[in-house]
């Protein structure tokens, strides 16, 4: 984990209010797993940093790819950065997805909205290990969908939209319900209500969930980002013990 001024090498709109931001710097060498995140000082106007997942990276080119959606002040401020500008980033943070797969295993990936990006690098690594991937991505509407064709390189992709403008109408859980057969393992990322529904639906299947919570420090020191856990300590910090947890580690409320 380092604090570094990364250089913007690309910044494009990929869907409604959704941007792909490619940053260059040495930080990339510290990435250990898909699903880790960076903590960004979006501008001097925002007092707190903003956590954004690493969607992909390239060691040779020393680049990190982020995909973010404009939600409020901080993500709005991010849109102003242009190629060549530098951005104050802390990272890579947290523990990502354990890339577990034997050839031929059926693995399910489900992501909702801005929960989709961290699954992208994961998909590639699971695919390279020979897993058979079913990928269900949920978006508000066709206008908000992104990364669909990129995911198709690695498995069967099903799109769910709230309004049915792309793929099937419904939530990712409706998508899961429509699947035949069972999964050896699943990985999911999205808003907590979605995670809860997915975990419930998939019962005892081995699962890994990536969580979101408002953060202060982003490195484990302030206890802003906790989630109750089943162990003796009673809590996990999403920024450093997570954001990815085994589905039985934490209590989703």
């Amino acid at each position: 984990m380092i604090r570094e001024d990364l250089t913007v090498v690309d910044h494009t709109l990929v869907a409604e209010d959704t941007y792909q931001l490619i940053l260059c710097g040495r930080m990339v060498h510290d990435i250990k797993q898909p699903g880790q995140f960076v903590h960004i000082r979006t501008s001097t106007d925002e007092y707190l940093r903003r956590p954004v997942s690493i969607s992909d990276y390239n060691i040779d080119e020393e680049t990190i790819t982020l995909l973010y959606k404009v939600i409020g002040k901080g993500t709005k401020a991010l849109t102003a950065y242009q190629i060549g500008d530098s951005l104050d980033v802390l990272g890579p943070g947290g523990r990502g997805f354990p890339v577990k797969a034997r050839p031929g295993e059926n693995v399910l990936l489900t992501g909702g909205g801005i929960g989709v990006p961290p699954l992208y690098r994961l998909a590639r690594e699971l695919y390279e290990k020979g897993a058979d991937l079913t990928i269900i991505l949920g978006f508000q509407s066709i206008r908000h969908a992104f990364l669909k064709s990129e995911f198709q390189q690695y498995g069967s992709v099903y799109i769910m939209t709230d309004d049915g403008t792309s793929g099937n109408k419904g939530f990712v859980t409706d998508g899961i319900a429509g699947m035949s057969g069972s999964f050896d393992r699943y990985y999911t990322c999205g808003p907590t209500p979605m995670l809860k529904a997915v975990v419930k639906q998939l019962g005892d299947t081995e699962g890994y969930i990536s969580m979101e919570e408002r953060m202060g420090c982003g490195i484990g020191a302030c206890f802003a980002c906790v989630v109750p856990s089943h162990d003796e300590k009673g809590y996990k910090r999403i920024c450093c013990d997570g954001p990815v947890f085994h589905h039985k580690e934490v209590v989703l409320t």
Partner: protein
Amino acid sequence: MNTMIQLPGLSLKNPIMPASGCFGFGREYARFYPLAELGAVIMKAATGEKRYGNPTPRVAESTGGMLNAIGLQNPGVESIIQEEIPFLKAQQVPIIANVAGSTVEEYVEVAEKISSHVDALELNISCPNVKEGGVQFGMDPVLAEDVTRRVVQVSRVPVYVKLSPNVSDIVVMAKAAERGGASGLSMINTLTAMRIDPSSRKPVLSNGTGGLSGAALKPVSIRMIHQVYPKVAIPIIGMGGIETAADIVEYLLAGASAVAVGSANFKNPLICRELVEQLPETLHHYGFQSVEEAVGGAHRESVEAGLLRP
């Protein structure tokens, strides 16, 4: 430049320390720089038993600052003594334990247990984010004096009482702590505040209120330290919104003998180290030969002296 400062129980090589609750127990920041560079480390609050704290969201932004309602989450005093203090000791940096509780008995218990393992106590009677104890003790001079006296009685190290800004008269509270036997004051904790999200129509923090910290708070803290300094004989550790070395000089001039840096660690995890590096040249720039010389300077400054300085 002499940046050393001697305070009861604390021999500091510089006056800069991370503030309680903004630095955990040091482990995370130790990955960024050696903690031995710091004047001291103030640990996250310790209570008798482990506490989970408040539901999330626990932090929010506000203009020039942030709100938090962590609610004193910590692993409990025993665990801190066994798991955390040994790590900090190994870093060779003076340690201040932040002591909290719901009852006087709990404060006393925590102080008794932890005081033989650290260099000083910071008695937290000013946490606005817990239902019982916390700031209740910090808003009533009688209760404040009493809890201070009982903690001082059992503590093996000097006690610094951490005051709350949520009071009508900060001088009354400072004097109560001094009467109770405090060796120093720590000023200030956060100011109770709230933000409401117009979309959800509810407070942003699940606890409703939280404590305001950061630059927005600084002029309130400076005012309170400036008020208290001439009225007490014990030293003050100043805090609230420190982000630059010039801010530290402002705190010293108001009357602080040392300072703590809180929320700014979240913006920049290297801030304390950078301030330690910048302080000597900043003091020099403003015409000081030592930290000591700047302490309380605003109270001694004459018009004539000001004219003589460029």
